[in-house]
């Protein structure tokens, strides 16, 4: 937001006194320090992914090597859990996105009895401590004699992902311009076609964002998973397990790769946003 024009009658802006200019630096400096604070472990992670540990200890820098990146794939004790995590994430994302989008549509387009209750039901899992979510599910499984494993992890992940999908898609739906749908219906499309040809493509970015959020939450989850895992090992569980011996460089390798993916994803997002803004401007100019 830019500042409003100076009120009438005031003198034109002079160069600010040095005291003010210095104090104007305080905020950006603090912000920069915080950013350093946020990224410190990541820097360490990237650097140590190239570390060549003599023994099993990955504490001090010993030598540069690319080996970790190469040998990683030949280690089933790592690729196994990673694959498990990816599978669970993929399935839970798919299911949660469908469930969540439906709920978001219901909440934003229809007025029905039980809205507050629904809002509460969506809100609570997001704010309750994860340990409660995981532990309470465990008591359910134990009480019903259900063995813990892949399926129970999957169920748990779908559960906590639904709320996040609802909130994300809902934010997108609220800004949605329904006159576009009406235009579609004016052109003789029925509700079903209108949804798929008009509504869905337009809310798709929101659905995609929700899916990505759900996916990353699922891959990263430790607390809820540990209560529901039984013998199954997901990637975060594996990391936690081997962390007693210090961080194996492979962990840093995977972390670095994930970071690169995230950076790439964000870069794509920013680039797309720019394209959309430019396109929107063109449409506006043409439309006038």
């Amino acid at each position, binding site marked *: 937001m830019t500042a409003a024009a100076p009120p009438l009658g005031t003198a034109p802006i002079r160069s600010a006194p040095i005291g003010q200019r210095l104090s104007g630096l305080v905020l950006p400096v603090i912000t920069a320090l*915080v950013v350093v604070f946020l990224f410190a472990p990541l820097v360490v992670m990237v650097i140590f992914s190239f570390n060549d540990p003599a023994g099993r200890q990955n504490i001090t820098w010993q030598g540069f090597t690319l080996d970790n990146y190469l040998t990683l794939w030949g280690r089933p004790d790592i690729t196994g859990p990673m694959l498990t995590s990816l599978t669970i994430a993929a399935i839970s994302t798919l299911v949660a996105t469908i469930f969540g989008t439906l709920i978001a549509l219901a909440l934003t387009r229809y007025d029905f009895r039980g809205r507050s209750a*629904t809002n509460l039901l969506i809100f609570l899992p997001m704010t309750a401590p*994860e*340990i*409660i979510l995981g532990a309470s599910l465990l008591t359910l499984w134990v009480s019903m004699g259900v063995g813990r494993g892949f399926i129970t992890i999957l169920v748990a992940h779908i559960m906590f992902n639904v709320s996040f999908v609802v909130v994300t898609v809902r934010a997108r739906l609220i800004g949605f311009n329904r006159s576009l749908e009406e235009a579609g219906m004016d052109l003789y499309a029925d509700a079903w076609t209108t949804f798929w040809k008009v509504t869905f493509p337009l809310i798709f970015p929101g659905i995609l964002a929700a899916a990505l959020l759900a996916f990353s939450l699922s891959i990263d989850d430790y607390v809820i998973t540990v209560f529901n895992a039984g013998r199954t090992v997901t990637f975060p569980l594996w990391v936690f397990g081997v962390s007693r011996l210090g961080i194996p460089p492979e962990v840093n390798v995977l972390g670095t790769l994930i970071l690169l993916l995230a950076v790439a994803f964000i870069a794509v997002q920013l680039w797309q946003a720019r394209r959309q803004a430019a396109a929107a401007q063109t449409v506006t100019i043409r439309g006038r």
Partner: protein
Amino acid sequence: MSRGRGLIPYLFLLPGGAWLILFFAIPMAFMLLVSLQEGSLSTGYELTWNFGIYPEVIAESSDQIIRSVTYAFATTVLTLFIGYPMAYTIAFRGGRLKNALLLIVILPFFVSFIIRTLNWKMILADNGILLGTLKDWGMLEAGFHLIATPAGVIGGLTYNFLPFMVLPLYVALEKIDPRLIEAGMDLFASRFQAFWRVTFPLSLPGVVAGSLLTFIPAVGDFINAELIGAANRDVTMIGNIIQFKYLNANDFPAASALGFVLLVGVMVLIAIYTRVVGSERLTS
């Protein structure tokens, strides 16, 4: 918005809603039920309505309960002090870089929580990069350590929950009309006063939201205490106890009782928040 078009909204709600009821709401009830049971894994459990377990468990873990609340409170305050300037800078000085800066704040959180915390542990290691260097320079005595101390655990908690504070603060600050601040500056003697009397009060909803979003997960956290706290029993939090009782000791009733205590505490906080804010705002 269509008014209650018959069954359609309920149909849409059905899959997700049923899932949440089955696997979120009902387990909560089970947790309460299990806490009132007695027995063990080998002899089986019996529902004896053993309400006495609650005072028992609270007394036994009172240290951890108090510690968890203290740590979570400290974390909330720290994230507020660190996060507020950052949110303020992005909201008011961000300009075109706003979105990029926000993404930078979020970026570290794509990498697994555990990996980040482990690397923090490495940074804070007794003779690692940070402390080792300071000790070599003679600025710290040799026996100084951050691992397995409350400061270390709180540091880890602060690090991990910082975005939970920054983002709501940013949202609230962004909505403030800068002309109000200008008007404030015209009326008050200093920029600081304008901030304190105009900006800060207007940002309070964000402060409250951020505080809740930080405090609640922090109070139930056990990963930081376990990883950074190492084996030090003096920094264990209630989450560690709950986890231990469930997964190691298999003492389900006691663990469930503690879990339920935590849940009730959190519910109370959320109920206060809901009263103040209204339920529609919850999910937006």
